[in-house]
């Protein structure tokens, strides 16, 4: 996951008959379920949309290290500490695959960082919420990674080959993280009254932000329609959100926890749950930079980048020196 509200340049989705021959051939390949590879022709808007989406996804993995990293030094047991470290390491690895996938579309990692640091590129709204207790680490694994998987599993069939292949690797690890998160919640829910209260409080705070991870209802949006026509996106936001609620509610019940939604009710006729509306005013505030931790998160990333300039420059300078030395040795040998 972690790519919400990705804009395309489309005003409306055009039919095959309205397309130039090259674009039409491209669309026909997509319709036939073929993968698009980096060196092939693609419409400029397809390229731009994918760069937006994949980089947003990569940035989310990187920024997502921060709320969880916040609890590594306070993890309650050696085993929990090790598991959390491994998870944060995996996330950095996911960021790396995704930046590499985006680079195949002709943008550099440094350019993407610049867009993140300047606020031009977005990352998932979820990481702008604070981790206030150990239970939040469980809730993030369970709910946030759960929502991410819901969104990412279909992306394994995305039309752009490098992105689809990155997703295959990432999904395996995410499922593992989700199980670990659920395990933390299980232990807390069966623990002392204080631990159970901690678990409920975490669910209360993470439930709605997790539902917002699927983005606003956008069945009518031209961006979504175009992304679906290109098979960059396979399901609507609402479809995925419904699936997530239906999967998660029984898990909450199993834990003995209450989902903080008075409107939540099983609907026999549709074979799914009815549920309330997330606070979309809050959602738009968070994605435009006004969530609880937006400033801290971006500041932490900018600081890491700026403080690390000497380190990167040092490595670059050493590499040039080594190259020059090898060159000199070659000349001397001749």
């Amino acid at each position: 996951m972690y790519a919400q509200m990705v804009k395309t340049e489309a005003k409306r989705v055009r039919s095959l008959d309205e397309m130039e021959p090259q674009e039409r051939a491209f669309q026909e390949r997509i319709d036939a379920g073929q993968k698009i590879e980096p060196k092939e022709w693609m419409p400029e808007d397809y390229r731009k949309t994918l760069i937006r989406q994949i980089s947003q996804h990569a940035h989310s993995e990187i920024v997502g290290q921060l709320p969880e990293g916040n609890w590594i030094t306070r993890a309650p047991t050696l085993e929990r500490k090790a598991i959390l470290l491994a998870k944060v390491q995996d996330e950095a690895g996911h960021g790396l695959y995704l930046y590499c996938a985006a680079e195949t579309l002709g943008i550099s990692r440094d350019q993407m960082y610049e867009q993140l640091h300047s606020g031009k590129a977005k990352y998932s709204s979820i990481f702008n919420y604070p981790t206030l207790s150990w239970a939040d680490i469980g809730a993030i694994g369970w709910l946030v990674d759960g929502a991410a998987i819901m969104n990412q599993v279909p992306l394994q069939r995305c039309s752009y080959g490098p992105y689809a292949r990155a997703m295959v690797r990432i999904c395996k690890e995410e499922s593992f993280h989700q199980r670990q998160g659920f395990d933390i919640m299980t232990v807390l829910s069966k623990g002392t009254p204080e631990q159970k209260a901690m678990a409920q409080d975490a669910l209360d705070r993470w439930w709605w932000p997790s539902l917002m991870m699927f983005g606003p209802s956008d069945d009518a949006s031209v961006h979504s329609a175009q992304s679906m026509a290109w098979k960059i996106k396979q399901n609507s936001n609402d479809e995925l959100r419904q699936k997530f609620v239906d999967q998660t509610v029984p898990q909450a019940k199993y834990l003995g926890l209450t989902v903080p939604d008075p409107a939540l009710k099983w609907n026999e006729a549709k074979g799914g749950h009815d549920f309330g509306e997330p606070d979309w005013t809050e959602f738009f505030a968070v994605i435009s930079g006004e969530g609880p931790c937006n400033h801290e998160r971006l500041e932490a990333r900018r600081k890491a980048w700026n403080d690390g300039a000497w380190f990167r420059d040092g490595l670059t300078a050493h590499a040039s020196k080594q190259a020059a030395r090898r060159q000199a040795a070659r000349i001397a040998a001749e």
Partner: protein
Amino acid sequence: MSAVGLSPAVAEFALRMGDNCLILGHRNSEWCGHAPALEEDIALANTALDLIGQTQLWLGLACEAEGKGRRPDEIAFLRDVSGYRNLLLVEQPNGDFGRTLMRQYLFDAWHLPLLKALMGSADKRIAEIAEKASKEVAYHLERSADLVVRLGDGTAESHTRMQAAVDFLWPYTGEMFLADALDEELVAAGLAPEPGSLKAAWQEHVTRTFAEATLKAPEKSFAQKGGRRGVHSEHLGYILAEMQFLQRAYPGASW
């Protein structure tokens, strides 16, 4: 005293080993998400994870050799500063990324030869842990030495920072080679090497690496010491306050 089974000396030695790994792993993990490059975030988390894994093994051995039925989490999360046995070097604050790397290098260059020597320990459990850990630590040393060279011989700024890191950390290196009564007992029983015997290999590695990195080791050889008998710097109390918070605030809970 049998080489395998209950042994206060083995228990105390395993605490020293485990505490070094725990505290250094903790320090490294403070960098998560804040490193100067994504690759460094991954490498540092990986190193921290290895060290926490080694902590579990050593503290597990400490509990076993102590024979009081305690668990590794109890001794990690419920001992206070004076009960901790780590070197002062590993509890030093991260500082800039250069200081973090230098601390890692100075430790790795000692840790690897120590583990290699421990692979021949008369206690099978020590030898087994050392063998497993030495594979990970060989990688740690390769990485930290490589970065010390690149940054020492990089730009003027990276050189200055790495030299400052050496100057700051040097007084904490001597403690690695000092022996006390416990060491004498361990040496006599063939359980662990004499700490001073590790100095030559360490010195040789550091001299070679610093030459390549164009760095200078300080000439002063005064050693700050005390960590191995529980007399620490002011930093450890803060590390433990943070690390032990949940276990202290919710006594007896399982996590």
